[in-house]
């Protein structure tokens, strides 16, 4: 990895669970399907390994490489969107999860970092999506139930991607 990534979107949530449970929720295929709009994560458990977020029909939604793999504290992956097709133009970003003890709960911090002058319109996708994804993860770990949060990319993001060269 040669590019320098700058944090642009940070989301913090506190969850009544153990570090290990939160790590498992982030890295297991079966678990992510329950809260990540049915997408399953596939991770080769080592630095440099492959990372895939797969749609329920088998197509690849996002792929990248594992940059840091330190269970149950830190996972960092590069993130290149493969579907929808228009989104392939986007340079890859870096998604980092940090899990830390916080009293009787754990603090999960998601940081989305970018290597280019990314317009706010494109950041709007993550700013809309991450709170929904991580609210779902928290509900699942604390109640066993998964909320049905409707979501699609914001129009301003879709338009901004169409304008990219």
């Amino acid at each position, binding site marked *: 990895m040669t590019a320098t990534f700058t944090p642009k979107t940070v989301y913090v949530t*506190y969850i*009544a669970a153990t570090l290990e449970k939160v790590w498992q929720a982030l890295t297991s295929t079966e678990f992510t399907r329950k809260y990540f709009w049915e997408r399953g994560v596939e991770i080769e458990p080592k630095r440099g390994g492959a990372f895939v977020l797969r749609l329920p029909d088998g197509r690849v939604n996002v792929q990248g490489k594992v940059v840091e793999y330190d269970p149950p504290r830190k996972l960092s992956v590069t993130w290149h969107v493969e579907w929808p097709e228009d989104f392939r133009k986007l340079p890859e970003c870096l998604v980092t999860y940090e899990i830390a003890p916080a*009293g009787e*709960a754990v603090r999960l911090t998601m940081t989305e970092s970018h290597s280019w002058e990314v317009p706010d319109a494109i950041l709007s996708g993550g700013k809309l999506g991450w*709170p929904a994804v991580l*609210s779902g993860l928290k*509900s699942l770990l604390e*109640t066993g139930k998964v*909320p049905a*949060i409707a979501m699609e990319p914001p129009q301003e993001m879709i338009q901004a991607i169409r304008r990219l060269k």
Partner: protein
Amino acid sequence: MSKPVFVYVVYIASTPEKVFKALTDTDATAKFWFGNAVTSDWKVGSPVTFHREGKLIVSGKVLEHDAPRRLSYTFQSHHEPHNGTEKPSRVVMDLEQQRDQVKLTVTHDDFAPDSKVFSSISNGWPLVLSSLKSYLEANRVLYAPWYEEQAKREVEKAAS
């Protein structure tokens, strides 16, 4: 430099009425907000206070009360180390029903130049709103680790 704005979104499996009540009720806030109990008659212009163990933590005035969609008040921190020295900022809470969820958006802005309160609230809101979600969904609350650390320091200080 643009003025700092803190925005936090959380989805809660509940109704707007229940979320709105939790945010405005003395007993509910005392439970999920680590002992910080809110008091107000919620009329526009009326005072809003948060007390914890008898100490004033936050004071403000009601700007908007449109149950169960929107709540807004000014926010002056009396918490250490701010102690009410910084001018009040503004909190806006927007509630929106989405399927079986409430999308709650907290926007906190209008800070003093070089605000020190901004960094405190940026750490505080994610825990407060995570605890609110746990309270409404799982009937449990989360604790503020910094209060525990503070309590530990006080015990150590008393012992030395």
